[in-house]
């Protein structure tokens, strides 16, 4: 884990060596400690420390980026010279206005020593407990326990000088029986001590035990109850398809031309909310711009998208602080989305369902038609039939082919309780959702 002082020293070396009109130096470090298990055995167990420094140099609107993993001042200076050399070889980008200037940001508690110091032995103890609890029910488990320490430092020639260190802990586990019956759970926190291993174990075991003898349902439209993870997977794809300023500007987003219009159901409010205390997002983006709260959808009405400095300039607005790392060309992206909850408990939602399908989460979600927010994927690790307000049996996995906005339009109930759901480097705070007329097909396998 690199210190603030060492980070500043390296970043400053890049600025000092640059003869560009404007220069930005970004350090991104990650220390990952991960224990992976399957068949109730630890089969992959690792520590990895990786740090990269990216230099972006601008000369007469020509932009070059060079990156190095060598953490010494000479290597960073060499990267700065290389970035400028690259910039001098390519045409000017007339749409580029400027790197962002210095701005204050609000500090949130993002770092927990408990996570940073969690040892391989401690992770093994957690896995051991999980294995033992499963064995008591003649079940086996597979999963991953990860603890991250992430460092981001940004300095630029306009005075930006930002540094943050954060931690993340994530435990996910699948519990499996002899007949292929399975249940799954996931827990996330910046503080590894806040991971509720007991609750996760209980939920995953309960689902695995209930998943025996699944019935096969016909293809058709069903009322479904989506657990928070399933809602989060749909929300993540919705964001891919339209909440970023680049796709919006290029008219490749379903949000393009729709701001102010009703695009989905009135129960749906989605906010990019890095300042939410439960999420505690990193306080600035990879350009050093403070991350802002951005309403994306309010009561079903399209409200806005997120920006980095480049696309904010094109759109004539201010950056919302959602730049990705300099070597990522995807454009700005919301990494801390929340969806407003409702008034109900999950139990009440099941009780209010005459006939429906209860879905734990999805697998291999992929686009079918991004402009129409159409995706496909299959259910996994805990799919159940609801009859007369009760879960009555397990259901064989099914394929959904569904417009996400249409599904959200058909949402009739949302849970009051929301859960943190991590996926890739995104963390979402999402409720469970009851949806009518959800397309499910019987699998052909």
């Amino acid at each position: 884990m690199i210190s603030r002082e060492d980070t500043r020293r390296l970043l400053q070396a890049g600025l000092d060596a640059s003869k560009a009109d404007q220069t930005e130096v970004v350090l991104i470090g990650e220390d990952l400690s991960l224990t992976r298990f399957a068949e109730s055995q630890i089969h992959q167990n690792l520590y990895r420390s990786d740090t990269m420094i990216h230099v972006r140099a601008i000369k007469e609107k020509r932009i070059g980026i060079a990156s190095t993993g060598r953490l010494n001042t000479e290597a960073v200076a060499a990267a700065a010279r290389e970035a400028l050399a690259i910039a001098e070889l390519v045409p000017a980008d007339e749409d580029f206005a400027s790197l962002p200037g210095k701005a204050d940001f609000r500090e949130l508690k993002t770092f927990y020593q408990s996570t940073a110091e969690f040892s391989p032995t401690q992770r093994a103890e957690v896995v051991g407990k999980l294995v033992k609890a499963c064995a008591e029910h003649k079940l086996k488990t597979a999963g991953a326990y990860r603890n991250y320490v992430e460092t981001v430092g940004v300095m630029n020639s306009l005075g930006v000088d930002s540094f943050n260190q954060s931690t993340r802990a994530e435990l996910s586990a699948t519990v499996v029986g002899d007949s292929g019956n399975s249940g799954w759970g996931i827990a996330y926190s910046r503080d590894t001590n806040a991971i509720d291993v007991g609750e996760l174990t209980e939920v995953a075991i309960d689902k695995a035990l209930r998943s025996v003898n699944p019935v096969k349902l016909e293809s058709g439209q069903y009322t479904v109850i989506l657990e928070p993870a399933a809602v989060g997977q749909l929300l993540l794809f919705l964001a891919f398809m339209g909440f970023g300023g680049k796709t919006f500007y290029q008219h490749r987003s379903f949000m393009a031309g729709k701001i102010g219009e009703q695009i989905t159901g009135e129960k749906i409010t989605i906010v990019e909310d890095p300042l939410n205390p439960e999420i505690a997002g990193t306080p600035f983006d990879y350009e050093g711009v403070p991350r802002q709260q951005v309403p994306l959808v309010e009561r079903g009405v399209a409200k806005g998208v997120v920006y980095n400095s480049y696309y904010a300039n094109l759109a004539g607005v201010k950056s919302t602080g959602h730049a990705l790392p300099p070597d990522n060309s995807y454009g700005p992206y919301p990494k801390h989305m929340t969806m407003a909850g409702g008034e109900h408990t999950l139990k009440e939602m099941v009780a209010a369902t005459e006939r429906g399908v209860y879905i734990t989460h999805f697998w291999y979600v992929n686009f079918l038609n991004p402009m129409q927010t159409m995706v496909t994927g299959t259910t996994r690790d805990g799919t159940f039939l609801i009859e007369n307000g009760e879960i009555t049996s397990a259901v064989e996995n099914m394929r959904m082919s569904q417009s996400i906005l249409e599904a959200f339009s058909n949402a009739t109930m949302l849970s009051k309780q929301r859960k943190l759901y991590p996926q890739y480097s995104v963390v979402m705070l999402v409720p469970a959702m009851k949806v009518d007329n959800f397309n499910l097909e019987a699998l052909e396998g």
Partner: protein
Amino acid sequence: MIDKIEKHSESILTYLAGKCEYADLRAEEISSERLSTSSRTTNPPEKSDSTGIAIRVLRNGSWGFAATSQVSEKNLKRMADLALEIAAASASVNSEKLELSELPAVTDEYSTPFEQDPFALSLSEKNDLLLGWEDLIYKTEGISSSSTFLDFRRIQKYFQATNGSKLRQTLMQCGAGVSCGMVMGHRERYERSFPTASGQFVTGGFEQIATFKIEENIERIASEALALKDAQECPSGEMTVILSPDLASLQIHESIGHPLELDRVFGSERNFSGTSFATPDKLGKLQYGSEIINLFSDPAFPGGLATYGYDDEGVKADRVPLLQKGVLVGYLSSRETAQRVGMASSAAARADGWGNVPLVRMTNLILEPGEQKFADMLSEVDEGIYIEGTSTWSIDDNREDFNLGGEVGWEIKGGKLGAMIKSPTYSGSTVDFWNKCDSVGHRDEWVLWGTPNCGKGEPGQNARTAQGAAYLRFRNVKVGA
């Protein structure tokens, strides 16, 4: 960096040999360069260097792994001790001790053969090539968005293990592609890509880019992108389907390659990438596909994106049959997984860079060419659909039920291509589907497609794989919704 590591590796491995059953050390220097354009604007070119070392140990029958980008003698020792500590933690939970298949000690070097070093060419020369492709795209009036890219990677690896193996490799990889499209209103977007949606990737030098024939195909794909707005909706029903070679490659990747990864078969990916129906009890028995399907893994096959001398466990690249006359006869495997079925490793243990544990990954999967060229294949179809390009793919976590789609399709009537079809999709169940294959395309139309973005594992590892295929024809396939 590698020379520096080699100086210290002997003493570290000697140190580890006294404390565990097996250990290996892997050092990598990865240089990358990516140039791209979006709608005639040059995106900032990116050049990157990543270096690091990894130590992997097997202690008391359990694995430990530690890696760092900060290469020094002190860190090498630190990673060695950490890997031992991690392995001990693994062993505290594990009731079973794992074993590895045999590995002879080898000292060798391997380098990708190439003529023109892509890193030696100026950026402006490469950027001009991309802007030239952009100009060609916009010769077709009506195109409103476009993108192009060139991607180069040089990977230098050093591997040394306690069994005495010492291996040096230098791999050179090149990729390129274009796409273009138009947006209609705020509801529809039509795109076509070439050579395929993610571009084409191979091992070799810059001379390979010209072999992709991008310039020759731009006008065609641009006019097809425009024509898609008036194309018919995809029909629904059972019919004969012909897949273009790039879509056939994706079909092989998803429904043959992944199911035959032996770690997945044994449940290693149960919590993430899933399992496989192709369990060892089916080996030698399962009629996976029709009798015309012959497929093998070959990381030594010239020019493939997954062509190398040795895998990341030091196993020599070699040809391993997977499907013979349609029957399941082999797996993609590592030393650990191969040992469990009494086979030799297929040299498929591959790590995404220095900082990851080797997993069983696809290599070059070669579907042996058949007898028919596309025109002959087409002439035998009274009614059906021809699908080209790749646009969507999804398959269940046991690798059986799949749904794939192309960028464009054409109806087939009376042995000829008819009207254009937008967003064509088809679905099926793996074994049933491959048994419906009644024609495998000819050698003259066969292409080894590179896939630069195959995801697997936690943390996510990106593998570069390849699948070789020509056109494929299947009967009685479910098409559309």
